[in-house]
Every structure is written in C-alpha cells, then in structure tokens.
C-alpha cells in the first residue's frame, strides 16, 4: 500500500496555546486510520489544518506526494480531501440536493440543473448502498440519514481521503455497525479514511492503524493488531485511571422524585415524552441511557419546570410540582447540571464569582438591603474555587475564559455545594477532559452518599454503567426498560437504545 497523506511536524498555536506541536501523521491508501485522543488533545485542530480551515504555523503536508499549500477548505476539497464534522455541516432548511451541491458553482455551473445533478448523485449513493431522498428538507431527516447526506456530499466532490470526526457520537450501536460496514466497503474500494475518536473499542474494531495524540503531541502510531485497549488508553491519558472511591455500603432512602405517566408535546405537537414513570430515591443514582435526541433534554427540562408537561404528575418529596415554575423549583432545592453549559449553565460573560451565585444572587447573605455584599460573594467564590479545584486566573475572570472542564466545574460546584435533595445531571462530562471527568464523577457519587437522589442522563454508556445504581433506557420519549446495575449488559442496552425490546 502506498502513502496518500503525510503531515510533517505540524504546529498550530492559538494565542500562546499550542494546539498541535510537531505532529506527524501518515495515512496509506485504502486504510482506515484512527486519530485517537481525549477532548482537547488537538485532533480537531490537526484535521482542520489538513482540511484547509486553519493554516499551520509550522510544518508541511504532502498529499499524493505533492506538497500542499492549503489556503481554504476549497483547496482541500479540490484535491480530494473530504471532511465530516462532528456537528454536521448541513443547512436544515435546504433540501438534501441543495446541501450536497452547495458551493459547487464553479464545477456545476451558475444555473442549477436539477435533473442532471440528481441523476449523478443517486448513482454515487447507490454504489455504496446508501439511499437518500434528494427533495427532503435536511431538517426533517434522522441523524443517521443526515450522516449519509454528509458522506454522499463528500463522495460527490470526489473525496479520496475522508476525515470523520467522532461519527458515532450520535448513533445507536446498530447504526454504528452499519456505518462501519459502509466505511469498510469504501476502504476496500481504495478510499482512505481518518476516523477521529476517543472510543477505544471503535479503534480496535474498525481501524487498521492508530495515531494517538495527547496535549497536542503524538504519543504513538501503531497497527491495531499490535496493541490493545489498555495500552491505547495509557498512550491517550498518560497514566493509569484512578478507580473511584465508593463507600461499600450505602443506604437507599425515601423516594424523592416520583414521576407518573409524564408526557410532553413539542412545538409541532409531536410527543417528545410519552407516558414516562420513574422513581428516584434518596441515596441512589438512576441512570437514563439512550441515543441523543430521544427525549432526554425534554425529560430534564419538564422536571425542573423549563417546559410544561402535557399530562402526568411529578412529585418532589411528595409534593406535586408539575405545575410549578422553574423559579419555584429552583427554590425547592433541586440541583440541575444542564446538558449545555454554554447555553444554559453559565452566563459566559459573567465572572466566575457571579456565575457561582446565579441561582442565589437575590438571597442573603449575598445581598444586604438593596445592594450586593461583595465581601461575602468574593469569599464564597474563593471557597468554591479551592474546594472544587477550579482552575481560573481569578474569581473575576469571565467564565468564557475558562477551559470546558473548569467551566463545568463551576456549574457542578454551584449545583452540588448546597446539598440538593434532587440532582439532575445531563451529560455532566460532555466535552470535558479526563481529569475533570474523574472529578465530576466523584462529586456526583459524593452527592449521592450525602443523601441526594440523582437522576443521571447520559449518552455515554460507560458513564451510565460507572455511576448508576439502577439504569433505565429512553427511546423516542418512552422508557423501554429498567434494570439493576447488576444486570448491566451493554448489548442488551444497545438494542433497547435502538428501540428493540
């Protein structure tokens, strides 16, 4: 096999931060090559350099033995490099056809010749066994279908090397398998594929070779047949993972959250939650597993009062809170780590200390008569920063200046330090590095041991398995199964996540 791509000592800086330093990467023709690393290791930066979105500060790229000087993604596309981003680069209000041909004016002419284009595209889709309806609006397609649109979009532009950024993050285990089959067919056909991931299983299962990144540097390049998951984890993290400390015995107490036949309808009248019944007791973690977009967000937001239930009841500590507003529910001592810290959890332009009182800003002791008492607020901030080891230039630094992990710690600190009766944690470690993940996991366990009822909603099965005492699976807004931790079986849960019973 000959080499299609060589990236030689690539360095890329953001400000004074090195996102990539002296990175070498070599990909062969017809190979599936994994780029492995944790969040923030520099995988995406490296690929954006290869795709022409960033210009490297140092280093050279050779593609098919020609030295590249990429000025924009257009250059990369013209050479046959395609990229499928983790967040799809599709326009929801455009049709599938429009999404596939957008930006191809030079090749396909000023006037859009619909019939001709449709024929060409259908042929490519058929070749790899993908069926897509070209006239549908992309916004109406499922995530799996959208991913197919992305693949066809890249193939239609004549991609010889396809970069896929975390393609399985939004797929069910079954959809994932289908994707891998497609990828393998494409590789056999001579395509080269770079698979960006942090999931070790996938690397071992589908890739030929793997390059591991840590802190912007390559720690290892190796054939998958010569390594194993444990070794790869070491290359990726640079140390052994600490096992979490748990008290051997814990006491499950009274039911705190009782949900009875809860339903919710979305804006268009679709049922996003369908007859859900759940109970979470004091001192236990109930994990809700499921593929993204199956009602997790709605479940959390209906409980805390951000959305209104269309039917059913929610009891908190025996009190009916179904009709209560978010303001009232916040006051009742519900901690809520939201799915999206940028959108919900933080005011990014506020300082760390201001964010730490987001839910208590009007209360004493932070307030004296009509005014803030900054002595108390500052002291509170300093306490939280040290107790939750939040890395920040200071309490007055704006939240947006913190790393993702430390931002999340601010949210966790605020929601957990008051010992909530009920803690709802949605994707508590999404986009967070391993260190912060470990820390947040420990805090959740601690909250539970202090008697909180914890509702953990996550798409990461490993996280669910790790933290939960009981597990329920959500699919299309309904609970399709519930089991004890001792019955945890990834295959079975995977099937449930895809809707099978």
């Amino acid at each position: 096999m000959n080499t299609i791509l060589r990236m030689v000592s690539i360095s890329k800086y953001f400000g004074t931060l090195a996102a990539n330093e002296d990175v070498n990467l070599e990909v062969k023709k017809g190979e599936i090559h994994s780029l492995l690393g944790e969040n923030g290791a520099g995988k995406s930066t490296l690929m954006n350099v290869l795709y022409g979105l960033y210009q490297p500060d140092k280093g050279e790229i050779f593609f098919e033995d020609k030295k590249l000087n990429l000025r924009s993604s257009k250059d990369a596309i013209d050479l046959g490099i395609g990229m499928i981003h983790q967040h799809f680069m599709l326009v929801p209000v455009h049709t599938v056809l429009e999404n596939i041909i957008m930006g191809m004016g030079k090749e396909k002419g000023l006037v859009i010749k619909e019939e001709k284009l449709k024929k060409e595209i259908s042929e490519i889709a058929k070749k790899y066994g993908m069926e897509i309806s070209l006239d549908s609006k992309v916004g109406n397609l499922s995530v799996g279908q959208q991913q197919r649109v992305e693949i066809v979009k890249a193939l239609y532009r004549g991609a010889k090397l396809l970069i896929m950024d975390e393609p399985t993050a939004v797929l069910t285990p079954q959809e994932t398998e289908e994707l891998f089959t497609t990828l393998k067919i494409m590789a056999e056909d001579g395509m080269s594929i770079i698979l960006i991931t942090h999931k070790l299983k996938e690397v071992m299962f589908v890739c030929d070779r793997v390059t591991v990144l840590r802190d912007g540097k390559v720690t290892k390049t190796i054939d998958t047949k010569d390594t194993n998951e444990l070794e790869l984890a070491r290359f990726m993290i640079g140390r052994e993972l600490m096992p979490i400390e748990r008290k051997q015995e814990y006491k499950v107490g009274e039911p705190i959250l009782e949900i009875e036949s809860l339903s919710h309808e979305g804006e268009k009248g679709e049922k996003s939650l369908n007859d859900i019944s759940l109970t979470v007791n004091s001192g236990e973690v109930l994990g809700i597993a499921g593929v993204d977009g199956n009602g997790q967000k709605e479940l959390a937001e209906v409980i805390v009062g951000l959305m209104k239930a269309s039917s059913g009841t929610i009891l908190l500590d025996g009190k009916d809170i179904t009709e209560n507003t978010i303001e009232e529910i916040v006051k009742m001592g519900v901690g809520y780590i939201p799915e999206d810290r940028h959108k919900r959890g933080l005011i990014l332009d506020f300082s760390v200390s201001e964010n730490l009182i987001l839910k208590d800003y009007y209360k004493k002791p932070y307030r004296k008569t009509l005014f803030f008492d900054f002595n108390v607020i500052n002291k509170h901030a300093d306490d939280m920063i040290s107790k939750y080891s939040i890395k920040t230039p200071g309490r007055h630094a704006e939240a947006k200046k913190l790393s993702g992990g430390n931002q999340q710690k601010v949210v966790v600190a605020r929601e957990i330090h008051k010992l909530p009766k009920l803690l709802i944690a949605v994707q508590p470690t999404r986009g967070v590095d391993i260190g912060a993940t470990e820390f947040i996991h420990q805090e959740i366990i601690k909250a539970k041991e202090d008697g909180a009822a914890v509702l953990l909603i996550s798409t990461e099965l490993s996280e669910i398995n790790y933290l939960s005492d009981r597990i329920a699976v959500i699919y299309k807004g309904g609970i399709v199964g519930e089991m004890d931790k001792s019955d945890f079986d990834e295959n079975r849960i995977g099937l449930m996540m895809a809707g099978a019973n």
Partner: protein
Amino acid sequence: MKKFDIFQLLKILIPIAAVFLALLLGSVLLLFIDVNPLEAYRYLIFGNFTNKYNTAEIFVKSTPIILTGLAFTFAFRTGLFNIGGEGQMFAGAMAAVFVGLKTGHLSPFLTISLSLIGAIIAGAIWGLIPGFLKGIFGSSEIIVTIMFNYVALYLISYLVDKPLRESIGFYPQTDLIGKNAFLPYVVPNTRLHIGFVIAVIISIIVYIILWKTPFGYRLRAVGFNPDGAEYSGMSIKKSIIISMAISGALAGVAGFTEINGIHHRLLDNFSKNVGFDGIAAALLGSANPAGVVVSSILLGMLQTGSNSMQRGVGVPANIVSIIQAMIIILVLAGNMLRPKLELYMRRKEKVIE
C-alpha cells in the same frame, strides 16, 4: 506593587486616537472646500473657551446627550438595542411641557418635581411599549423603537399645531411653561442649568443599579444569556419589559431637562438628533456611565465649537456629524482590533523573554 499595564492604557488610547484620526479625516474635507484645517479647528476647539457663556454651552449641549446615552447604555447592557432614545425624549418633553403649563404656578420644587416625574413616566411608557412587544411577541425592539421615534415626532407636531398651540396662535409652539417650572441656573449669565447636575447624578445611579444590585445583575444576566437566565429561574419577558421602561425613562428625563432647562416650551423639531447623539456617546464611552458622561461632554464641545467654526470660517456646521460618525466607527473598529493587537504584543513579549 501593581505592574504597569500597557493593555489598560490601550483601552484609553483607542478613543483618543480615534478622535484625532477623525479630525484628520475631517481636515481632508476642509481642504476639499478650501479651508485651512488648522484655522477651522482653532475655532472648533478654542471657540468654546472665549467666554464663560460659550464654555457653559458645552455642558448645556451635553446634558440631554448624557441622558439619552445612558438610555442606550442601560438597554445595551441588558441585551437590548434601544434606538428610540429620540422618541422617548420627545415623549418626556411632551409630558414635561404639559405639567409645566398646568402646574407652573405651584412652588418651584413642586412643579419641577412633577415635571420630572411626568417626563419619567412618559419616557418609560414610550420604552415600555416596544419592550412589551419584544417580550410578548418577539418583535424586534430595534425596528419598533425606530418607528416610535417618528410617531413621537408627529405627535409633537400635532400638539404644537392644534391642542397646545400658543395662545396668540402665531407659531406652532406652546406657551411658555410657568416661571416656577424653569430649572434654576447653576452658573449666572449662562444657560447652564441644574439639569447637568441631575444627569451626572443619574449616571451614578445607573452605574450602581447595573453593577451593585441583584436587580441589575438579573437584567444583565438576561441580556447576556436569556437561556441561562431562564434556567436559573429568572423571567425573561419581565426583564426585557423592565429594562426597556427604565431605558425609556432615562431618555424621558432628557426631554425634561431640555424643556424645563432650555426651551421652556415645546416646539417642532426641538433638540433634533439628540437621541442619536446619545447612541454615539454611549458607543464612544464603551457603554459605561462614566464613559458616557465624558464622551457626551466631548460631543457637546464639538457641537458648540462647530457653530463658532461656521461663524468664523464659514464651514458648514454639519461637518461635525461626519467627524462624530467617524469617531464612533474608529473607536468601535479599534475595540474590535484591540485583542489582536494585544495578542501580537504578548507574543512579541514572549519572544523577547
């Protein structure tokens, strides 16, 4: 000991550089009409200081600009664009005149207080309506406030034309308000009235509300991130409406100071463009109250100076609008480019280390 911070300096340097650059651009225009820029700028700047009256005029002109500037600032800091300072000022003026006409016979303290309260309420209403439409229907407050400027303009035109027209009925203007409703002068033999002091006090109050109270915290939180604010239990709609009402009230006070302090009656087209000058002052003063006061004084200076420039060298006073607009653009551009400049300097520093 605190290290000398060049980056702090940059923050102050940018507006100063912008003013100079804008004057430089203005001098190109002056050359274009065959006027010696140095001569013209001598009038523009020093024309203000030839006598006490002219110097006081700077502060007279800046008073309503401070207030409309605070109006824009307040809305801006809470995530809203209030382009309607002009209309809200008009609304305040209408109320102030009405109260001044009806209660001018009462004691000065009483009638002035009533005029102020009337102006505050009227301005607040003129801001509240767009706020309400934004909060409830999601209508763009930008469009609505702009439209409300015109509505207020024609309302004044109607008032001075018909119901409140002066008793002799000659000009389209109202009668003078009662003498007791006139704002007292603070410097004798000038037009500088107590309104300037009121404006400065209000700017301090605005600062305290926004940054020192839970109330302001909440409004700012909604402004920065409505989703985050909602998540923490705040009502977005309520905040938007309150913010717009307060913003409108601030501009309303400008109507009060203009009527009770300067014109003493309502007339068509009075204090035109002051609402937009306020936006300029707010942007120039990076939307913080102290900055607004300083920039308003600067704009006041340019405007009084431009009149003596027109008299002295025959340059159309409107050149000041160009210079003013260029200052805003340059300051904003400078602020946008500052992070890049800082980064460049930091990197250089690193290399030197």
